[in-house]
């Protein structure tokens, strides 16, 4: 038994123990994410069907709204304006149903195997978030392809791309973890389906995704400024488009998303075990 040994460990040994602790933690995070990615590889059809939604938004909604002259989107054309919004939306819609998968895994019994394993709960939550990030990035590359086809002024500068990858990854992780928290609270698929729809719409519409915040009434502007999606879209708007601008600054956007994400991981890790009780 090592647990009652005295703690007089020499510094290098303690360091080695700490670094192997981190390596162990990362391996467990990777184990969860890799499993999800293998499942996607066995059944990639889902990714393709998910590409339909952003296509419909850009082609139908975007093309029509682009004819409305009354909407001041700050210089550029409307399709350019909503492309980052639709990108964020498609990632949001994919991530927000992560909770359903968690409930499904609980109903099957697969979740029990994660919960009896020695993996820390935060590692399980990070692993799921990481797999959501990978999905989000696949989704993003499809939206990029669509946007390029439609003649939207997308930029592929390396720093821009790196920034977009970071925003999409953190945004995906954030909303999938939020979804996981909802799942832990409502616990059944039926209730989740109901509430999932109710939550997605306000997150999407009370944000700057398809219209500028400036045209909103004051109360809605306040809600939007508390909505993480607003910061994701704001950052994307600066990085995705040639000559794009950000209202809050990309660094601030990323910092807000990262902080909210970490807070949500903490909450989810506490609630996750409740699903198998």
């Amino acid at each position, binding site marked *: 038994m090592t647990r009652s040994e005295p703690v007089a460990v020499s510094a290098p040994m303690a360091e080695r123990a700490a670094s192997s602790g981190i390596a162990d933690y990362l391996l467990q995070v990777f184990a969860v994410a890799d499993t999800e990615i293998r499942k996607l590889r066995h*059944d990639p059809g889902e990714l393709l069907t998910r590409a339909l939604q952003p296509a419909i938004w850009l082609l139908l909604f975007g093309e029509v709204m682009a004819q409305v002259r009354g909407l001041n989107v700050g210089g550029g054309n409307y399709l350019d304006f909503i492309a980052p919004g639709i990108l964020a939306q498609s990632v949001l819609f994919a991530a927000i149903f992560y909770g359903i998968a968690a409930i499904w895994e609980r109903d*099957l019994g*697969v979740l029990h195997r994660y919960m*009896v394993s020695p993996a820390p709960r935060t590692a399980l939550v990070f692993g799921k978030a990481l797999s959501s990030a990978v999905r989000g990035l696949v989704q993003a590359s499809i939206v990029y392809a669509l946007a390029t086809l439609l003649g939207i002024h997308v930029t592929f500068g390396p720093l821009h791309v790196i920034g977009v990858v970071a925003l999409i990854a953190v945004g995906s992780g954030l909303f999938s973890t939020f979804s996981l928290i909802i799942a832990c609270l409502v616990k059944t698929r039926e209730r989740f389906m109901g509430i999932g729809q109710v939550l997605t719409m306000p997150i999407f519409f009370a944000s700057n995704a398809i219209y500028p915040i400036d045209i909103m009434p004051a109360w809605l502007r306040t809600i939007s400024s508390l909505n993480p999606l607003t910061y994701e879209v704001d950052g994307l708007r600066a990085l995705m488009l040639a000559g794009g601008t950000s209202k809050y600054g990309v660094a601030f956007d990323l910092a807000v998303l990262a902080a909210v994400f970490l807070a949500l991981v903490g909450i989810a890790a506490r609630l996750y075990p409740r699903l198998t*009780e």
Partner: protein
Amino acid sequence: MDAVPFVIETRHLSKHFGDFVAVDDVSLSVRAGEIFGLIGPNGAGKSTLVKMLTTLLPPTSGTALVAGFDIRREPAQVRRKIGYVPQLLSADGTLTGYENLLLSARLYLLARRERQARIAAALEMMDLTEAADRQVQAYSGGMIRRLEIAQSMIHEPAVLFMDEPTVGLDPVARDAVWKHVKELRDRLGTTILITTHMMEEADALCDRIGLQHGGRLQDVGTPQELKDRVGPGATLDDVFAHITGATIDSGGSYHDTQRTRRSIRAHG
């Protein structure tokens, strides 16, 4: 036998759900290397007891030591030492058998150089080597159960918990699971606690049996001891009826029935 240490020791373990007492003051000791059967009808509190011992469910009162660690104060250490085969489906159908084992090997932090050898050995032991690269959804119920046993023992746990391991299996698949469970104990010395509501299973597999009814542990002994207490020629069914005044088929809620049926569908 007295020299063999206890690997599971519960102390006045109870679990209440509101007014309902699912597990009522259970004090139970299981020795290293034993196959211990917890028998009782659906709703007797067997699964709740196992969920507490596997740290999935916090007890209302009392505690337990599993592999030397306290389930309330040291759940992380307990998890390192145990394996759990839930009644539900714990193998992922969209993954292959190999991928399922790889996931367990990583979650249990097996050293990289050992991983492949352990996975190969587990597949071999459960007669699944040839099916390793097929998706689990193409497996038969018996194969899925054997894979679930393989993935829950890949880290060579001190204690393996199995909740109704043969529900829904045909007799041939059931006999194969029994054979593998015994082999596991004989080769690795793993202590195994199974729950079952099938007397035949308890008789064929278990060194000792605990009779669980209405949340309480009613009696403990070897199958023979328990039968002898009732009279010559008695079966375990008779023992159960004698002790509880009920038959094993009675009891069980809508929820239990639903769960059992789902497990049967998954493994059948």
